[in-house]
Protein backbone atom coordinates (compact mmCIF):
# COMPACT_ATOMS: atom_id res chain seq x y z
CA UNK A 1 0.00 0.00 0.00
CA UNK A 2 2.68 2.40 1.04
CA UNK A 3 4.72 1.26 -1.92
CA UNK A 4 1.84 2.05 -4.25
CA UNK A 5 1.38 5.48 -2.73
CA UNK A 6 5.04 6.21 -3.15
CA UNK A 7 4.91 5.11 -6.76
CA UNK A 8 1.89 7.21 -7.43
CA UNK A 9 3.62 10.09 -5.78
CA UNK A 10 6.65 9.61 -7.89
CA UNK A 11 4.64 9.46 -11.08
CA UNK A 12 2.55 12.47 -10.04
CA UNK A 13 5.62 14.52 -9.26
CA UNK A 14 7.12 13.49 -12.56
CA UNK A 15 3.97 14.57 -14.35
CA UNK A 16 4.25 18.00 -12.76
CA UNK A 17 7.78 18.71 -13.89
CA UNK A 18 8.45 16.24 -16.66
CA UNK A 19 5.19 16.52 -18.59
CA UNK A 20 6.90 17.85 -21.71
CA UNK A 21 8.79 14.57 -21.95
CA UNK A 22 5.54 12.61 -21.90
CA UNK A 23 4.20 15.01 -24.50
CA UNK A 24 7.26 14.20 -26.61
CA UNK A 25 6.37 10.52 -26.37
CA UNK A 26 2.69 11.03 -27.10
CA UNK A 27 2.74 11.05 -30.94
CA UNK A 28 4.89 7.92 -31.05
CA UNK A 29 2.64 6.17 -28.54
CA UNK A 30 -0.55 7.15 -30.36
CA UNK A 31 0.78 5.98 -33.72
CA UNK A 32 2.01 2.73 -32.16
CA UNK A 33 -1.28 1.99 -30.44
CA UNK A 34 -3.46 2.83 -33.42
CA UNK A 35 -1.34 1.43 -36.24
CA UNK A 36 0.55 -1.38 -34.54
CA UNK A 37 -1.70 -2.64 -31.72
CA UNK A 38 -5.18 -2.19 -33.19
CA UNK A 39 -4.32 -4.37 -36.22
CA UNK A 40 -3.20 -7.10 -33.81
CA UNK A 41 -6.67 -7.02 -32.29
CA UNK A 42 -8.49 -6.75 -35.60
CA UNK A 43 -6.88 -10.12 -36.36
CA UNK A 44 -9.96 -11.58 -34.63
CA UNK A 45 -11.49 -11.31 -38.10
CA UNK A 46 -9.89 -14.70 -38.63
CA UNK A 47 -12.38 -16.20 -36.18
CA UNK A 48 -15.42 -14.46 -37.65
CA UNK A 49 -17.54 -14.59 -40.72
CA UNK A 50 -16.50 -11.01 -41.29
CA UNK A 51 -18.85 -8.53 -42.85
CA UNK A 52 -17.41 -5.10 -43.35
CA UNK A 53 -20.60 -3.28 -42.41
CA UNK A 54 -21.64 -5.14 -39.26
CA UNK A 55 -21.17 -2.95 -36.21
CA UNK A 56 -18.16 -0.85 -35.17
CA UNK A 57 -15.22 -1.86 -37.38
CA UNK A 58 -17.42 -4.71 -38.57
CA UNK A 59 -16.63 -6.40 -35.30
CA UNK A 60 -20.27 -7.39 -34.67
CA UNK A 61 -19.87 -10.09 -37.34
CA UNK A 62 -20.76 -13.62 -36.17
CA UNK A 63 -18.05 -15.74 -34.54
CA UNK A 64 -17.29 -18.99 -36.30
CA UNK A 65 -14.39 -20.35 -34.24
CA UNK A 66 -11.74 -22.09 -36.27
CA UNK A 67 -13.91 -22.57 -39.33
CA UNK A 68 -11.73 -20.31 -41.50
CA UNK A 69 -8.62 -22.24 -40.59
CA UNK A 70 -10.36 -25.51 -41.45
CA UNK A 71 -11.45 -23.98 -44.78
CA UNK A 72 -7.92 -22.81 -45.37
CA UNK A 73 -6.43 -26.25 -44.97
CA UNK A 74 -9.15 -27.77 -47.15
CA UNK A 75 -8.43 -25.23 -49.87
CA UNK A 76 -6.20 -27.02 -52.40
CA UNK A 77 -4.12 -23.90 -52.79
CA UNK A 78 -3.04 -23.28 -49.22
CA UNK A 79 -1.08 -26.29 -47.88
CA UNK A 80 1.54 -26.12 -50.68
CA UNK A 81 2.00 -22.43 -49.81
CA UNK A 82 3.33 -23.35 -46.38
CA UNK A 83 6.01 -25.54 -47.88
CA UNK A 84 6.81 -22.99 -50.57
CA UNK A 85 7.10 -20.03 -48.19
CA UNK A 86 9.53 -22.10 -46.17
CA UNK A 87 11.41 -23.36 -49.23
CA UNK A 88 12.01 -19.89 -50.69
CA UNK A 89 13.32 -18.64 -47.34
CA UNK A 90 15.65 -21.60 -46.92
CA UNK A 91 17.08 -21.01 -50.39
CA UNK A 92 17.56 -17.34 -49.60
CA UNK A 93 19.23 -18.18 -46.32
CA UNK A 94 21.54 -20.92 -47.58
CA UNK A 95 22.65 -19.15 -50.77
CA UNK A 96 22.09 -15.51 -49.89
CA UNK A 97 23.33 -15.33 -46.32
CA UNK A 98 27.00 -16.31 -46.79
CA UNK A 99 27.34 -14.00 -49.82
CA UNK A 100 27.95 -10.68 -47.99
CA UNK A 101 30.35 -12.40 -45.62
CA UNK A 102 32.46 -13.72 -48.50
CA UNK A 103 32.23 -10.50 -50.47
CA UNK A 104 33.33 -8.45 -47.47
CA UNK A 105 36.40 -10.66 -47.03
CA UNK A 106 37.27 -10.25 -50.71
CA UNK A 107 36.82 -6.47 -50.58
CA UNK A 108 39.03 -6.40 -47.52
CA UNK A 109 41.80 -8.23 -49.36
CA UNK A 110 41.80 -5.83 -52.32
CA UNK A 111 45.01 -3.80 -52.20
CA UNK A 112 43.97 -0.80 -54.24
CA UNK A 113 41.92 1.74 -52.30
CA UNK A 114 40.49 3.05 -55.55
CA UNK A 115 39.11 -0.38 -56.40
CA UNK A 116 37.76 -0.82 -52.88
CA UNK A 117 35.92 2.46 -52.84
CA UNK A 118 34.57 2.21 -56.35
CA UNK A 119 33.18 -1.28 -55.99
CA UNK A 120 31.67 -0.48 -52.59
CA UNK A 121 29.80 2.50 -53.99
CA UNK A 122 28.50 0.34 -56.84
CA UNK A 123 27.59 -2.62 -54.61
CA UNK A 124 25.46 -0.50 -52.27
CA UNK A 125 23.54 1.05 -55.14
CA UNK A 126 20.81 -1.57 -55.80
CA UNK A 127 19.73 -1.33 -52.17
CA UNK A 128 18.34 2.08 -53.09
CA UNK A 129 16.24 0.82 -55.96
CA UNK A 130 12.74 -0.57 -55.53
CA UNK A 131 11.75 -4.14 -56.27
CA UNK A 132 9.44 -2.77 -58.93
CA UNK A 133 12.46 -1.38 -60.77
CA UNK A 134 14.51 -4.55 -60.23
CA UNK A 135 11.61 -6.65 -61.52
CA UNK A 136 11.32 -4.37 -64.55
CA UNK A 137 15.02 -4.78 -65.26
CA UNK A 138 14.69 -8.54 -64.85
CA UNK A 139 11.82 -8.53 -67.29
CA UNK A 140 13.96 -6.64 -69.80
CA UNK A 141 16.81 -9.09 -69.46
CA UNK A 142 14.72 -12.23 -69.74
CA UNK A 143 12.15 -11.23 -72.34
CA UNK A 144 12.00 -12.98 -75.71
CA UNK A 145 11.85 -9.61 -77.47
CA UNK A 146 14.93 -8.31 -79.21
CA UNK A 147 15.93 -6.45 -76.02
CA UNK A 148 16.13 -9.69 -74.05
CA UNK A 149 19.83 -9.89 -73.37
CA UNK A 150 19.91 -13.36 -71.89
CA UNK A 151 18.20 -14.84 -74.94
CA UNK A 152 20.46 -12.80 -77.23
CA UNK A 153 23.52 -14.25 -75.56
CA UNK A 154 22.10 -17.76 -75.73
CA UNK A 155 21.51 -17.39 -79.45
CA UNK A 156 25.01 -16.04 -80.01
CA UNK A 157 26.23 -19.19 -78.33
CA UNK A 158 24.22 -21.27 -80.79
CA UNK A 159 20.83 -21.83 -79.18
CA UNK A 160 17.99 -22.11 -81.70
CA UNK A 161 15.05 -20.91 -79.63
CA UNK A 162 14.21 -18.03 -77.31
CA UNK A 163 13.01 -19.15 -73.91
CA UNK A 164 10.27 -17.36 -71.96
CA UNK A 165 12.05 -17.76 -68.62
CA UNK A 166 9.31 -16.14 -66.59
CA UNK A 167 6.76 -18.68 -67.81
CA UNK A 168 8.14 -21.61 -65.82
CA UNK A 169 7.47 -21.80 -62.07
CA UNK A 170 10.59 -23.94 -61.56
CA UNK A 171 12.76 -20.99 -62.66
CA UNK A 172 11.15 -18.68 -60.15
CA UNK A 173 13.11 -19.61 -56.99
CA UNK A 174 16.37 -19.03 -58.85
CA UNK A 175 15.20 -15.70 -60.15
CA UNK A 176 14.39 -14.79 -56.54
CA UNK A 177 17.78 -15.89 -55.28
CA UNK A 178 19.79 -14.16 -58.02
CA UNK A 179 17.89 -10.86 -57.94
CA UNK A 180 17.99 -10.94 -54.14
CA UNK A 181 21.73 -11.44 -54.15
CA UNK A 182 22.38 -8.67 -56.64
CA UNK A 183 20.18 -6.29 -54.69
CA UNK A 184 21.27 -6.90 -51.10
CA UNK A 185 24.70 -8.60 -50.99
CA UNK A 186 26.63 -5.34 -51.22
CA UNK A 187 24.60 -3.62 -48.55
CA UNK A 188 25.07 -6.63 -46.30
CA UNK A 189 28.86 -6.26 -46.41
CA UNK A 190 28.78 -3.01 -44.40
CA UNK A 191 28.42 -4.71 -41.05
CA UNK A 192 31.15 -7.29 -41.79
CA UNK A 193 33.55 -4.63 -43.04
CA UNK A 194 32.95 -2.70 -39.85
CA UNK A 195 33.74 -5.82 -37.83
CA UNK A 196 36.94 -6.38 -39.82
CA UNK A 197 38.05 -2.77 -39.38
CA UNK A 198 37.55 -3.18 -35.65
CA UNK A 199 40.26 -5.83 -35.45
CA UNK A 200 43.26 -4.68 -33.44
CA UNK A 201 46.20 -3.99 -35.79
CA UNK A 202 48.55 -5.47 -33.18
CA UNK A 203 47.04 -8.89 -33.82
CA UNK A 204 48.22 -8.70 -37.42
CA UNK A 205 51.67 -7.58 -36.32
CA UNK A 206 51.88 -10.45 -33.85
CA UNK A 207 50.78 -12.92 -36.51
CA UNK A 208 53.44 -11.58 -38.86
CA UNK A 209 56.15 -11.92 -36.26
CA UNK A 210 55.05 -15.51 -35.84
CA UNK A 211 55.67 -15.93 -39.56
CA UNK A 212 52.10 -15.82 -40.85
CA UNK A 213 51.76 -14.83 -44.50
CA UNK A 214 48.61 -13.28 -45.88
CA UNK A 215 46.75 -16.59 -45.81
CA UNK A 216 47.94 -17.22 -42.28
CA UNK A 217 46.80 -13.76 -41.18
CA UNK A 218 43.43 -14.38 -42.77
CA UNK A 219 42.95 -17.79 -41.15
CA UNK A 220 44.26 -16.85 -37.71
CA UNK A 221 43.18 -13.21 -37.36
CA UNK A 222 40.60 -11.88 -39.81
CA UNK A 223 38.33 -14.91 -40.02
CA UNK A 224 38.09 -15.70 -36.30
CA UNK A 225 37.54 -12.07 -35.44
CA UNK A 226 34.42 -11.69 -37.58
CA UNK A 227 33.07 -15.16 -36.93
CA UNK A 228 31.00 -14.00 -33.91
CA UNK A 229 29.29 -11.33 -36.04
CA UNK A 230 28.52 -13.96 -38.64
CA UNK A 231 27.05 -16.38 -36.13
CA UNK A 232 24.85 -13.72 -34.53
CA UNK A 233 23.58 -12.53 -37.92
CA UNK A 234 22.89 -16.13 -38.91
CA UNK A 235 20.92 -16.80 -35.76
CA UNK A 236 18.80 -13.71 -36.35
CA UNK A 237 18.34 -14.69 -39.99
CA UNK A 238 16.59 -17.86 -38.81
CA UNK A 239 13.93 -15.56 -37.40
CA UNK A 240 12.78 -14.75 -40.92
CA UNK A 241 12.55 -18.35 -42.07
CA UNK A 242 8.80 -18.18 -42.40
CA UNK A 243 8.53 -14.57 -43.50
CA UNK A 244 8.14 -13.97 -47.19
CA UNK A 245 9.48 -10.96 -48.93
CA UNK A 246 6.18 -9.66 -50.30
CA UNK A 247 7.68 -6.89 -52.42
CA UNK A 248 10.16 -9.11 -54.19
CA UNK A 249 7.80 -11.98 -54.92
CA UNK A 250 4.83 -9.83 -55.82
CA UNK A 251 6.80 -7.74 -58.30
CA UNK A 252 8.59 -10.62 -59.97
CA UNK A 253 5.47 -12.76 -60.42
CA UNK A 254 3.24 -12.72 -63.47
CA UNK A 255 -0.22 -14.08 -64.20
CA UNK A 256 1.04 -17.31 -65.75
CA UNK A 257 3.08 -18.53 -62.80
CA UNK A 258 1.25 -16.76 -59.97
CA UNK A 259 -0.69 -19.82 -58.82
CA UNK A 260 2.44 -21.97 -58.61
CA UNK A 261 4.71 -19.40 -57.00
CA UNK A 262 2.47 -17.74 -54.43
CA UNK A 263 3.64 -17.56 -50.85
CA UNK A 264 1.40 -16.94 -47.86
CA UNK A 265 1.70 -13.15 -47.79
CA UNK A 266 1.01 -12.77 -51.50
CA UNK A 267 -1.88 -15.22 -51.19
CA UNK A 268 -3.47 -13.22 -48.39
CA UNK A 269 -3.15 -10.06 -50.44
CA UNK A 270 -5.00 -11.55 -53.41
CA UNK A 271 -7.58 -13.37 -51.31
CA UNK A 272 -8.19 -10.47 -48.96
CA UNK A 273 -7.66 -7.07 -50.52
CA UNK A 274 -8.34 -8.23 -54.06
CA UNK A 275 -11.07 -10.87 -53.74
CA UNK A 276 -12.63 -9.56 -50.54
CA UNK A 277 -12.44 -12.84 -48.61
CA UNK A 278 -11.34 -11.01 -45.48
CA UNK A 279 -11.73 -13.80 -42.93
CA UNK A 280 -9.92 -16.43 -44.97
CA UNK A 281 -7.05 -14.10 -45.80
CA UNK A 282 -6.69 -13.03 -42.18
CA UNK A 283 -6.58 -16.65 -41.10
CA UNK A 284 -3.76 -17.26 -43.56
CA UNK A 285 -1.88 -14.19 -42.39
CA UNK A 286 -2.39 -15.05 -38.75
CA UNK A 287 -1.11 -18.57 -39.30
CA UNK A 288 2.07 -17.12 -40.77
CA UNK A 289 2.29 -14.41 -38.12
CA UNK A 290 2.11 -16.82 -35.21
CA UNK A 291 4.85 -19.05 -36.60
CA UNK A 292 6.93 -15.96 -37.33
CA UNK A 293 6.54 -14.65 -33.82
CA UNK A 294 7.58 -17.99 -32.34
CA UNK A 295 10.65 -18.06 -34.59
CA UNK A 296 11.58 -14.46 -33.79
CA UNK A 297 11.21 -14.91 -30.06
CA UNK A 298 13.29 -18.07 -30.08
CA UNK A 299 16.10 -16.59 -32.13
CA UNK A 300 16.10 -13.46 -30.00
CA UNK A 301 16.47 -15.68 -26.95
CA UNK A 302 19.17 -17.71 -28.67
CA UNK A 303 20.97 -14.59 -29.86
CA UNK A 304 20.91 -13.18 -26.35
CA UNK A 305 22.51 -16.36 -25.06
CA UNK A 306 25.15 -16.30 -27.80
CA UNK A 307 26.05 -12.63 -27.64
CA UNK A 308 24.71 -11.22 -24.42
CA UNK A 309 22.36 -8.91 -26.37
CA UNK A 310 18.90 -9.14 -27.83
CA UNK A 311 17.76 -7.00 -30.71
CA UNK A 312 18.39 -3.95 -28.59
Amino acid sequence: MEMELRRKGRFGRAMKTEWPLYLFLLPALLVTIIFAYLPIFTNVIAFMDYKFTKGWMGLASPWVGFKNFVDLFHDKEFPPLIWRTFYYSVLRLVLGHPAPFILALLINEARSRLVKRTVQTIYYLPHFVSWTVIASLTYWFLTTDIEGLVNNIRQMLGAQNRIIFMKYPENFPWILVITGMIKETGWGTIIYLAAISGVDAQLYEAAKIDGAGRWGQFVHVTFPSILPTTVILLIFAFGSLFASNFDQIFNLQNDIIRYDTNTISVYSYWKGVWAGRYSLATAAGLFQGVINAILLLSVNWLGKKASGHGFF
Partner: protein
Amino acid sequence: MATTLHERPRSLRSNLGIKRSIGELIFDNLNVIFLLAFAFMTLYPFWYILVLSLNEGKDSMQGGVWFWPRKWTLTNYGYVLLNPQVLTAYRTTILRTLSGSVLSLLVCGFAAYALTKHRLPGRSLIITIFMIPMFIGGTVVSYYVLIAKLGMLNTFWVYIIPGCFNFFLTIIVRTYMYTIPPSLEESAKMDGASYFTIFFRIVTPLCMPIVATVFLFSAVGHWLDLYSNLIYTASNKAIMTLQYLLYLLILAKESSLNTLTEHPPIQGGAFTSRAEQVTPQAVKTAVIMVVTLPILFVYPFLQKYFVQGVLIGSVKE
Protein backbone atom coordinates in the same frame (compact mmCIF):
# COMPACT_ATOMS: atom_id res chain seq x y z
CA MET B 1 33.27 9.44 -50.29
CA ALA B 2 33.24 5.78 -49.53
CA THR B 3 33.70 4.55 -46.04
CA THR B 4 36.96 4.48 -44.26
CA LEU B 5 35.80 1.37 -42.49
CA HIS B 6 38.27 -1.29 -43.14
CA GLU B 7 41.55 0.37 -43.60
CA ARG B 8 43.98 -1.81 -41.91
CA PRO B 9 47.66 -1.01 -42.01
CA ARG B 10 49.46 -2.15 -45.10
CA SER B 11 51.58 -5.18 -44.48
CA LEU B 12 55.16 -4.45 -43.62
CA ARG B 13 56.41 -6.34 -46.63
CA SER B 14 54.53 -4.29 -49.16
CA ASN B 15 55.69 -1.11 -47.44
CA LEU B 16 59.25 -2.20 -47.90
CA GLY B 17 58.53 -3.04 -51.52
CA ILE B 18 59.30 -6.72 -51.08
CA LYS B 19 57.75 -8.77 -53.85
CA ARG B 20 54.56 -10.69 -53.30
CA SER B 21 54.71 -14.43 -53.79
CA ILE B 22 53.36 -15.93 -57.00
CA GLY B 23 50.32 -17.30 -55.16
CA GLU B 24 49.57 -13.90 -53.70
CA LEU B 25 49.93 -12.23 -57.08
CA ILE B 26 47.52 -14.66 -58.69
CA PHE B 27 45.04 -14.24 -55.85
CA ASP B 28 45.25 -10.45 -55.88
CA ASN B 29 44.62 -10.28 -59.61
CA LEU B 30 41.78 -12.81 -59.57
CA ASN B 31 40.25 -10.99 -56.63
CA VAL B 32 40.25 -7.64 -58.39
CA ILE B 33 38.85 -9.25 -61.52
CA PHE B 34 36.07 -10.85 -59.48
CA LEU B 35 35.25 -7.62 -57.63
CA LEU B 36 35.09 -5.66 -60.87
CA ALA B 37 33.02 -8.36 -62.55
CA PHE B 38 30.48 -8.30 -59.75
CA ALA B 39 30.43 -4.50 -59.92
CA PHE B 40 29.76 -4.77 -63.64
CA MET B 41 26.93 -7.24 -63.03
CA THR B 42 25.40 -4.83 -60.56
CA LEU B 43 25.73 -1.72 -62.65
CA TYR B 44 25.17 -3.01 -66.16
CA PRO B 45 21.38 -3.62 -65.94
CA PHE B 46 20.87 0.06 -65.12
CA TRP B 47 23.29 1.12 -67.82
CA TYR B 48 21.54 -1.07 -70.38
CA ILE B 49 18.14 0.43 -69.67
CA LEU B 50 19.65 3.91 -69.73
CA VAL B 51 21.15 3.22 -73.16
CA LEU B 52 17.84 1.87 -74.47
CA SER B 53 15.98 4.89 -73.12
CA LEU B 54 18.33 7.22 -75.02
CA ASN B 55 18.07 5.28 -78.27
CA GLU B 56 15.34 5.60 -80.87
CA GLY B 57 12.71 2.95 -80.20
CA LYS B 58 12.41 1.69 -83.77
CA ASP B 59 16.18 1.43 -84.00
CA SER B 60 16.41 -0.58 -80.77
CA MET B 61 14.12 -3.13 -82.38
CA GLN B 62 16.85 -3.92 -84.89
CA GLY B 63 18.83 -5.30 -81.99
CA GLY B 64 22.49 -4.89 -81.18
CA VAL B 65 22.23 -1.86 -78.90
CA TRP B 66 24.19 -3.04 -75.88
CA PHE B 67 26.62 -0.54 -74.51
CA TRP B 68 26.05 2.78 -76.24
CA PRO B 69 23.05 4.41 -77.94
CA ARG B 70 23.20 4.05 -81.72
CA LYS B 71 20.65 6.72 -82.62
CA TRP B 72 20.54 9.26 -79.83
CA THR B 73 17.22 10.76 -78.91
CA LEU B 74 15.51 12.45 -75.99
CA THR B 75 12.08 11.84 -77.47
CA ASN B 76 11.36 8.96 -75.09
CA TYR B 77 11.94 11.26 -72.14
CA GLY B 78 9.82 13.91 -73.83
CA TYR B 79 6.89 11.52 -73.82
CA VAL B 80 7.41 10.62 -70.22
CA LEU B 81 8.10 14.01 -68.73
CA LEU B 82 5.23 15.73 -70.50
CA ASN B 83 2.71 13.06 -69.63
CA PRO B 84 0.26 14.44 -67.04
CA GLN B 85 -0.04 11.09 -65.27
CA VAL B 86 3.70 10.88 -64.76
CA LEU B 87 3.90 14.48 -63.59
CA THR B 88 1.12 13.93 -61.06
CA ALA B 89 2.87 10.83 -59.78
CA TYR B 90 6.11 12.75 -59.53
CA ARG B 91 4.48 15.52 -57.53
CA THR B 92 2.76 13.05 -55.20
CA THR B 93 5.96 11.11 -54.62
CA ILE B 94 8.03 14.22 -53.89
CA LEU B 95 5.34 15.57 -51.61
CA ARG B 96 5.02 12.37 -49.62
CA THR B 97 8.78 11.91 -49.45
CA LEU B 98 9.34 15.39 -48.01
CA SER B 99 6.34 15.61 -45.71
CA GLY B 100 6.60 11.99 -44.61
CA SER B 101 10.29 12.26 -43.75
CA VAL B 102 9.87 15.50 -41.83
CA LEU B 103 6.96 14.06 -39.86
CA SER B 104 8.88 10.89 -39.17
CA LEU B 105 11.89 12.88 -38.03
CA LEU B 106 9.80 14.89 -35.58
CA VAL B 107 7.95 11.90 -34.13
CA CYS B 108 11.10 9.76 -33.80
CA GLY B 109 13.24 12.65 -32.60
CA PHE B 110 10.81 13.65 -29.83
CA ALA B 111 10.48 10.05 -28.67
CA ALA B 112 14.23 9.47 -28.81
CA TYR B 113 14.92 12.53 -26.69
CA ALA B 114 12.41 11.51 -24.04
CA LEU B 115 13.87 8.00 -23.98
CA THR B 116 17.34 9.31 -23.18
CA LYS B 117 16.01 10.31 -19.76
CA HIS B 118 16.67 7.18 -17.73
CA ARG B 119 14.91 8.43 -14.64
CA LEU B 120 11.63 9.11 -16.40
CA PRO B 121 8.95 7.03 -14.62
CA GLY B 122 7.27 4.57 -16.96
CA ARG B 123 10.20 4.65 -19.40
CA SER B 124 10.77 0.90 -19.49
CA LEU B 125 7.04 0.24 -19.87
CA ILE B 126 6.96 2.57 -22.86
CA ILE B 127 9.98 0.85 -24.41
CA THR B 128 8.21 -2.49 -23.99
CA ILE B 129 5.13 -1.06 -25.69
CA PHE B 130 7.31 0.04 -28.61
CA MET B 131 9.09 -3.30 -28.83
CA ILE B 132 6.21 -5.77 -28.83
CA PRO B 133 5.07 -4.88 -32.38
CA MET B 134 8.51 -5.93 -33.62
CA PHE B 135 7.54 -9.50 -32.84
CA ILE B 136 3.83 -9.64 -33.54
CA GLY B 137 1.73 -7.59 -35.85
CA GLY B 138 -1.39 -7.42 -37.94
CA THR B 139 -1.98 -9.12 -41.24
CA VAL B 140 -2.57 -7.54 -44.65
CA VAL B 141 -6.31 -7.61 -44.08
CA SER B 142 -6.36 -6.45 -40.48
CA TYR B 143 -4.38 -3.36 -41.49
CA TYR B 144 -6.60 -2.86 -44.49
CA VAL B 145 -9.77 -3.05 -42.42
CA LEU B 146 -8.34 -0.60 -39.88
CA ILE B 147 -7.26 1.91 -42.50
CA ALA B 148 -10.64 1.59 -44.20
CA LYS B 149 -12.51 2.16 -40.94
CA LEU B 150 -10.38 5.19 -40.11
CA GLY B 151 -11.49 6.65 -43.42
CA MET B 152 -7.93 6.79 -44.71
CA LEU B 153 -8.40 4.59 -47.78
CA ASN B 154 -7.52 6.47 -50.96
CA THR B 155 -6.23 9.50 -49.07
CA PHE B 156 -2.77 11.00 -49.04
CA TRP B 157 -2.55 10.54 -45.23
CA VAL B 158 -2.13 6.82 -45.50
CA TYR B 159 1.28 7.41 -47.09
CA ILE B 160 2.71 9.41 -44.22
CA ILE B 161 0.88 8.76 -40.95
CA PRO B 162 0.77 5.00 -40.24
CA GLY B 163 4.51 4.55 -40.77
CA CYS B 164 5.73 7.81 -39.24
CA PHE B 165 7.03 6.20 -36.06
CA ASN B 166 9.87 3.75 -36.48
CA PHE B 167 11.40 2.29 -33.35
CA PHE B 168 14.58 1.27 -35.14
CA LEU B 169 15.25 4.85 -36.30
CA THR B 170 14.32 6.12 -32.85
CA ILE B 171 16.96 3.89 -31.29
CA ILE B 172 19.55 5.19 -33.76
CA VAL B 173 18.73 8.78 -32.81
CA ARG B 174 18.73 7.99 -29.11
CA THR B 175 22.10 6.27 -29.34
CA TYR B 176 23.48 9.40 -30.97
CA MET B 177 21.90 11.70 -28.38
CA TYR B 178 23.78 9.88 -25.63
CA THR B 179 27.00 11.39 -27.02
CA ILE B 180 25.86 14.91 -26.14
CA PRO B 181 27.51 15.95 -22.88
CA PRO B 182 24.81 16.16 -20.16
CA SER B 183 26.46 19.27 -18.73
CA LEU B 184 25.28 21.33 -21.71
CA GLU B 185 21.71 20.48 -20.99
CA GLU B 186 22.07 20.97 -17.26
CA SER B 187 23.50 24.44 -17.57
CA ALA B 188 20.68 25.39 -19.92
CA LYS B 189 18.23 24.08 -17.35
CA MET B 190 19.87 26.22 -14.69
CA ASP B 191 19.21 29.20 -16.91
CA GLY B 192 15.56 28.24 -16.91
CA ALA B 193 15.29 26.70 -20.37
CA SER B 194 12.28 24.45 -20.90
CA TYR B 195 12.50 20.98 -22.44
CA PHE B 196 11.19 22.42 -25.70
CA THR B 197 13.92 25.04 -25.82
CA ILE B 198 16.55 22.44 -24.95
CA PHE B 199 15.25 20.07 -27.62
CA PHE B 200 15.14 22.60 -30.43
CA ARG B 201 18.01 24.91 -29.44
CA ILE B 202 20.58 22.51 -28.00
CA VAL B 203 19.87 18.88 -28.83
CA THR B 204 18.71 19.25 -32.43
CA PRO B 205 21.64 21.38 -33.65
CA LEU B 206 24.09 18.93 -32.10
CA CYS B 207 22.30 15.99 -33.73
CA MET B 208 22.47 17.27 -37.29
CA PRO B 209 24.50 14.33 -38.68
CA ILE B 210 22.00 11.83 -37.33
CA VAL B 211 19.09 14.01 -38.40
CA ALA B 212 20.48 13.80 -41.93
CA THR B 213 20.85 10.03 -41.66
CA VAL B 214 17.33 9.45 -40.38
CA PHE B 215 15.86 11.86 -42.89
CA LEU B 216 17.60 10.00 -45.71
CA PHE B 217 16.57 6.55 -44.51
CA SER B 218 13.02 7.71 -44.25
CA ALA B 219 13.10 9.52 -47.59
CA VAL B 220 14.42 6.46 -49.39
CA GLY B 221 11.70 4.36 -47.77
CA HIS B 222 9.04 6.77 -49.04
CA TRP B 223 10.50 6.97 -52.52
CA LEU B 224 10.65 3.19 -52.89
CA ASP B 225 7.35 2.31 -51.27
CA LEU B 226 4.92 0.47 -53.51
CA TYR B 227 2.94 -1.35 -50.85
CA SER B 228 0.82 1.45 -49.38
CA ASN B 229 -0.23 2.65 -52.81
CA LEU B 230 -0.96 -0.89 -54.00
CA ILE B 231 -3.09 -1.78 -51.01
CA TYR B 232 -4.70 1.39 -49.72
CA THR B 233 -4.89 3.88 -52.59
CA ALA B 234 -5.06 1.74 -55.70
CA SER B 235 -8.33 3.27 -56.84
CA ASN B 236 -7.35 6.92 -56.46
CA LYS B 237 -5.34 7.76 -59.58
CA ALA B 238 -4.89 11.37 -58.44
CA ILE B 239 -2.47 10.33 -55.69
CA MET B 240 -0.67 7.57 -57.56
CA THR B 241 3.02 7.29 -56.73
CA LEU B 242 5.85 6.72 -59.18
CA GLN B 243 6.51 3.15 -58.08
CA TYR B 244 2.89 2.18 -58.52
CA LEU B 245 2.78 3.84 -61.92
CA LEU B 246 5.83 1.83 -62.90
CA TYR B 247 4.24 -1.33 -61.54
CA LEU B 248 1.05 -0.80 -63.54
CA LEU B 249 2.90 0.14 -66.68
CA ILE B 250 5.51 -2.59 -66.83
CA LEU B 251 4.57 -5.44 -64.55
CA ALA B 252 0.79 -5.35 -64.57
CA LYS B 253 0.82 -4.23 -68.23
CA GLU B 254 -2.19 -2.04 -67.63
CA SER B 255 -3.56 -1.20 -71.05
CA SER B 256 -5.05 2.17 -70.12
CA LEU B 257 -1.55 3.47 -69.56
CA ASN B 258 -0.33 2.45 -72.98
CA THR B 259 -1.88 5.67 -74.18
CA LEU B 260 1.40 7.06 -72.90
CA THR B 261 2.77 6.55 -76.39
CA GLU B 262 -0.32 7.06 -78.49
CA HIS B 263 -0.56 10.82 -78.29
CA PRO B 264 2.60 12.81 -78.88
CA PRO B 265 2.67 15.41 -76.13
CA ILE B 266 3.79 18.28 -78.34
CA GLN B 267 2.69 18.89 -81.89
CA GLY B 268 5.01 20.23 -84.52
CA GLY B 269 8.71 20.88 -84.54
CA ALA B 270 11.44 18.33 -84.22
CA PHE B 271 9.30 16.41 -81.82
CA THR B 272 6.75 15.01 -84.26
CA SER B 273 9.30 14.31 -86.94
CA ARG B 274 10.87 11.91 -84.50
CA ALA B 275 7.54 10.71 -83.15
CA GLU B 276 7.14 7.79 -85.53
CA GLN B 277 10.40 6.39 -84.19
CA VAL B 278 8.90 5.93 -80.74
CA THR B 279 7.86 2.53 -79.40
CA PRO B 280 6.02 1.70 -76.18
CA GLN B 281 9.02 -0.36 -75.08
CA ALA B 282 11.37 2.61 -75.44
CA VAL B 283 9.07 4.91 -73.51
CA LYS B 284 8.85 2.33 -70.74
CA THR B 285 12.63 2.27 -70.40
CA ALA B 286 12.50 6.04 -70.01
CA VAL B 287 9.90 5.65 -67.25
CA ILE B 288 12.17 3.22 -65.38
CA MET B 289 14.98 5.73 -65.58
CA VAL B 290 12.83 8.64 -64.50
CA VAL B 291 11.80 6.70 -61.39
CA THR B 292 15.32 5.51 -60.58
CA LEU B 293 17.68 8.31 -61.57
CA PRO B 294 16.91 10.81 -58.78
CA ILE B 295 18.09 8.30 -56.19
CA LEU B 296 21.04 7.08 -58.24
CA PHE B 297 22.23 10.66 -58.63
CA VAL B 298 22.05 11.69 -54.99
CA TYR B 299 23.01 8.42 -53.36
CA PRO B 300 26.80 8.39 -53.97
CA PHE B 301 27.11 11.81 -52.32
CA LEU B 302 25.15 10.72 -49.27
CA GLN B 303 26.63 7.25 -48.93
CA LYS B 304 28.46 7.99 -45.70
CA TYR B 305 25.23 8.97 -43.92
CA PHE B 306 23.59 5.69 -44.84
CA VAL B 307 26.59 3.66 -43.76
CA GLN B 308 26.70 5.58 -40.50
CA GLY B 309 23.04 4.77 -39.91
CA VAL B 310 23.59 1.06 -40.38
CA LEU B 311 26.56 1.07 -38.05
CA ILE B 312 24.90 3.01 -35.24
CA GLY B 313 21.85 0.78 -35.64
CA SER B 314 23.91 -2.35 -35.16
CA VAL B 315 25.45 -1.16 -31.90
CA LYS B 316 23.41 -2.68 -29.16
CA GLU B 317 22.66 -1.22 -25.80
